[in-house]
């Protein structure tokens, strides 16, 4: 045992002696580690942000169709519009004995490419993301007056809006100037804190406001010769006729399957209930291949680093044959030589991993707050998780195996050289 400690100390001194050459190898391994762990950590965070973009919602009810499409549209405001569901159905679901609360969502309009979500002020109290975190206001409050709008953090940052800023919504995706609701401008009453969810990119108005700006519209265009001025809308019934989707919270989660079946079997209207977690997981698995490719690339980078390690040690062996013969003459076995060289390789791998972890930590501490405040992506400084330990273990194992290449070469050299140096 003491012999192995001695050989390990020799390996350390030998590596230190050639630190100029080996520093580059260590740097390579450090960068590989940084890349591998960094990507894994960001991947995990993005996954968490994605899958938990909405939490605490037991069911999302919408028109019958593709569940993924409904989730993409209702939660991420992406993709094509799904069919609407009637207000009457929404009210009946809300009145169901198992249902604790509902939040209706109505989509379709936009503002400079950002989706506009019409909902109830309850939305800001009920909406949860990640591990039950709430939406916070950095400034202002929820919409109250008819033409109030609450904007997400990214909208505020990108467009430079502050409280009271006036803005005009576009009909649909806002592709043409004609389709603007220019006669009914909104004013910002609240700005939300960054969440790292689609909330950051959206604008929120009341359902009544959505109704109001479309009073004089039909089929995606203003009705010719008919205009309702902003000060006249109060005279109309602003109850929505239909909505896009309904977030449903249950009194007891165990009733979720029963309600899902019940909604699916609705006779009056073709509806469906989607469990967000299940749909998000399905969605994530579709997107995850790209992430996995990234991980594969960084694994290849790691292999490149390790190949550099093997070649650096191999290249040094030629001038170390003397040293190996000296150790042999003093009683070292060929297996000791093997151990010495393998030890040196593993030592370099550990040094590289340590340097990589330090870099990662500094990076997280350095850019973490910026990421959190601008994008709501919270990259915690934390000890490596299970997956990350597996990755680190993988690097060490691969490093050990790679180190065996020069170690085996040294073993052969010490067997054939013996005490003489064949020149």
């Amino acid at each position: 045992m003491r012999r192995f400690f001695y050989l390990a100390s020799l390996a350390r001194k030998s590596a230190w002696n050639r630190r100029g050459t080996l520093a580059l190898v260590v740097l390579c391994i450090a960068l590989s580690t940084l890349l591998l762990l960094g990507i894994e950590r960001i991947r995990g965070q993005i996954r968490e942000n994605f899958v938990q973009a909405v939490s605490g919602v037991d069911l999302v009810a919408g028109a019958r169709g593709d569940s993924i499409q409904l989730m993409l549209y209702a939660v991420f405001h992406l993709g094509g519009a799904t069919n609407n569901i009637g207000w009457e159905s929404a009210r009946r679901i809300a009145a169901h004995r198992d249902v604790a609360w509902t939040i209706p969502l109505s989509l379709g309009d936009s503002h400079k490419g950002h989706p506009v979500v019409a909902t109830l002020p309850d939305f800001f109290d009920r909406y949860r993301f990640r591990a039950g975190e709430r939406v916070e206001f950095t400034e202002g409050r929820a919409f109250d007056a008819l033409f109030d709008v609450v904007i997400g953090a990214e909208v505020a940052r990108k467009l430079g809006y502050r409280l009271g800023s006036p803005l005009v919504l576009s009909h649909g995706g806002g592709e043409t100037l004609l389709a603007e609701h220019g006669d009914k401008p909104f004013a910002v009453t609240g700005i939300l804190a960054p969440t790292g969810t689609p909330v950051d990119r959206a604008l929120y108005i009341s359902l009544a406001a959505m109704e109001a700006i479309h009073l004089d519209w039909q089929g995606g265009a203003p009705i010719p010769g008919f205009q309702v001025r902003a000060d006249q809308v109060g005279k109309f019934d602003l109850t929505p006729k239909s909505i896009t989707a309904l977030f449903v919270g249950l009194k007891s989660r165990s009733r979720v399957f029963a309600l899902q079946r019940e909604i699916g079997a609705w006779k009056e209207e073709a509806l469906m209930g989607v469990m967000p977690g299940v749909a998000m997981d399905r969605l994530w698995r579709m997107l995850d291949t790209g992430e996995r490719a990234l991980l594969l690339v960084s694994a290849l980078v790691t292999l490149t680093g390790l190949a550099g390690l093997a070649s650096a040690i191999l290249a040094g062996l030629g001038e170390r044959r003397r040293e190996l013969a000296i150790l042999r003459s003093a009683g070292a076995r060929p297996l000791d030589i093997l151990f010495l060289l393998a030890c040196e390789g593993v030592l370099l791998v550990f040094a590289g991993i340590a340097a990589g972890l330090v870099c990662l930590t500094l990076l997280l501490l350095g850019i973490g707050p910026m990421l959190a405040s601008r994008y709501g992506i919270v990259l915690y400084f934390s000890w490596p998780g299970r997956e990350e330990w597996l990755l680190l273990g993988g690097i060490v194992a691969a490093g050990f195996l790679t180190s065996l290449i020069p170690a085996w070469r040294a073993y052969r050299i010490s067997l054939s050289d013996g005490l003489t140096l064949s020149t």
Partner: protein
Amino acid sequence: MTSSSAAFAVALRDVRFSWPGQSRPVLDIADLSIRPGERVFLSGPSGSGKSTLLGLIAGILRPDCGTIAVNGTALHAMSASARDRFRGAEIGFIFQQFNLVPYLSMIENVLIPCHLSPRRQARARQRASTLRDAAAHLLERLELAPALWERPVTRLSTGQQQRVAAARALIGAPPLLIADEPSSALDADRRDVFLKLLLNECALAGSSLLFVSHDVGLAGAFSTALRLDDLNAAEQGETV
């Protein structure tokens, strides 16, 4: 093991050795005996199989047939790793040049055998309170000043390096010292100083010395002078 071989520091009987894949032996030695404490000068032209013979005595190589005993231990019957262990414990080795591990200090170079062989370490401790002291005594007697001890060994002169190598071979008083042309890289003055110091220390440690050199002028300082050509019955490549 016969009682006759037990009385010798080195005893080779009817040893033949050929390199793998070659039918003709490079060494064929009927009898080579070195008595305990004897100082043997072995000479021979290059290519005569000197290094091969040293490899056999040091237990690096194994003979095709015959017996090799060092201090009464039959090397030819031992496993490779047992021979390695034996070498670490019982044999000190000095090379022609480049004897030092570049990343270790002078003291650390001297102590290498003590770390690889517990028996060597135990014997070194018998003579000094610490291993470092044991190394220091040797270095002092070999006229290497303490100021040099922690300096990088790569800055030492060849003569100094060979004396460090001698200290490493001598630490823990191995019964047999093998020196393979240890003085051929030195100029005449330094060679004489080195030889004197080495012979003194061998006498102090009670070690037998097998000194290989092509410099026949040195033979006078030894109790026995042998020529490998006289010992070796194998035909040499160039004479065929």
